[in-house]
């Protein structure tokens, strides 16, 4: 077999693998969206879910998903950026740093159900809060933080060393350099990473089962007092998110239209994650252009 034939075979194998991957993805997406679009309408998105009758919607679940995501990001992003800055700029190479890095990697690879059980112990039972949005968000923070730290560290490290040296050589301090040169240059990478991880958080179910709970109180969307149990903004209320809802109707649902609700909710979930991904790409390229282009 001569090298030309080998090369051709290798090429076709890789093309085949890529095709299998893309094909699976499209088939899955197509299947979910096809079945989902049959169910999704304005009514489905804006009505309450039902416990036994058919025709329930996902209004509260959808809101909960975004709200839990928002609270999670409120914790994760500042902590993650801080951790990333430390790892990229301050941590001295050595055993301690290696240990921290190993911890972050282990944390990042923890199964989410384990994070959920940990959340149950600490954020639900030990704090005495019960199933709350805050508990869920904290569990998701444990789950998401290592990813954000990693993303920020990589983004800061990928800023050319020359830029940092340029600023230091001008007699600017390390911290001011981080603030005004490194972080802005790393911003597109950080933003993309944060949005992509938002997709992961948005779709997470296992870590929320035992922390944010499987139920939602009757929400009154005209009640904006964050201390009222019926207020959507209350972070001390249980909240069933979209992914948890899909899991619940499929395992313990007694509504007759389980299939439809699950299809619709899955499609909404997938579309949201898809939007996060596209948004990340789009924003990343816009900012990149703005920073390197003519304006």
């Amino acid at each position, binding site marked *: 077999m001569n090298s030309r034939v080998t090369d051709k075979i290798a090429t076709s194998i890789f093309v085949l693998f890529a095709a299998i991957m893309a094909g699976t993805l499209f088939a899955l997406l197509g299947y979910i969206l096809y079945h989902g679009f049959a169910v999704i309408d304005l009514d489905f998105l804006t009505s309450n879910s039902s416990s036994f009758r058919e025709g329930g919607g996902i209004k509260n679940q959808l809101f909960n998903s975004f709200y839990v995501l928002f609270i999670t990001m409120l914790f994760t992003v500042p902590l993650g950026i801080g951790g990333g800055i430390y790892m990229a700029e301050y941590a*001295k*190479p050595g055993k301690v740093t290696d240990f921290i890095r190993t911890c972050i990697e282990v944390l990042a690879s923890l199964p989410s159900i384990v994070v959920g059980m940990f959340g149950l112990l600490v954020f639900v039972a030990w704090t005495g809060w019960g199933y709350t949005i805050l508990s869920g968000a904290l569990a998701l923070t444990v789950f998401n933080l290592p990813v954000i730290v990693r993303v920020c560290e990589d983004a800061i490290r990928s800023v*050319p060393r*020359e*830029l*940092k*040296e*340029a*600023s*230091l*050589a*001008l*007699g*600017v*301090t390390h911290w*001011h350099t981080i603030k*005004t*040169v490194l972080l*802005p*240059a790393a911003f597109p990478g950080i933003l993309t990473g944060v949005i992509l991880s938002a997709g992961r958080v948005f779709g997470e179910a296992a870590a929320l089962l035992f922390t944010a709970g499987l139920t939602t109180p009757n929400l009154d969307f005209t009640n904006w007092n964050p201390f009222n149990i019926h207020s959507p903004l209350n972070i001390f209320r249980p909240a069933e998110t979209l992914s948890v809802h899909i899991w619940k109707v499929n395992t313990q649902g007694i509504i007759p239209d389980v299939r439809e609700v699950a299809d619709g909710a899955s499609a909404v979930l997938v579309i949201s994650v898809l939007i996060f991904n596209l948004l990340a790409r789009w924003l990343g390229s816009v900012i990149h252009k703005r*920073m*390197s*282009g*003519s*304006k």
Partner: protein
Amino acid sequence: MKFVLDKKQERVTKEKEKKNAILKVRNLNIYYGDNHAVHDINMDIEEKSITALIGPSGCGKSTFLRSINRMNDTIPIAKNNGEILYEGLNILEDDIEVVALRKEIGMVFQKPNPFPMSIYNNITHALKFKGIRKKKELNQIVEDSLKKAALWDEVKDRLHESALSLSGGQQQRLCIARSLALKPRILLLDEPSSALDPISNAKIEDLIMELSSEYTIIIVTHNMQQASRVADKTAFFLSGDLMEYDETSKIFTNPSNPKTEEYITGKFG
């Protein structure tokens, strides 16, 4: 190239008188971990003159240059001993305020490294950190330093465009302007034109000679012609040793060390 030579001639005759040493390097050793990169250097750098550091790659000249404004501090494994006396003060001491030192001793790197911001902000970056906030004052400094770096006429109408839209040579002059804005006394140039085309290179060389009437310039270069064109004194480094340090004309016409002669005639390098 003729006008370059003329200018140099003029300068040499005008400033023949003895200058005092702004930097005195005494028994300087620099180590990267176990690697002894610079061995026991002693040399005096004259004020308001151009000193070229030449030698093959890895000979320690850039390492030495970076130690003068403590840029080696950013490399954790770099250690040094000995003295670099600047106005009688040993700048290698631990209690030296590095931030203040770097304002007096600026540095321009091999690869043009403007910040990914506007031309204007590239220059004001360090000024704002120093606490200069008045718009008028900033404008004035931006104009002055761009004029000094011979870039003003080319960019005065687009100060708020991204610095990355400039050509390589313009970017490098912007980097020089950025250093000049801090009114340094010494400018360290680490192969400032090796990444540029010949025309940009000639502009940078012109600029360097212009600037030497006000600033002390130390330039690392791989380009022998460049050293002979611009420098008043030239130091030849080889494997971490300072082999020879003398008037540029002497180094290039009648070096005392046979190794120097071999290097400048291209026998190795």
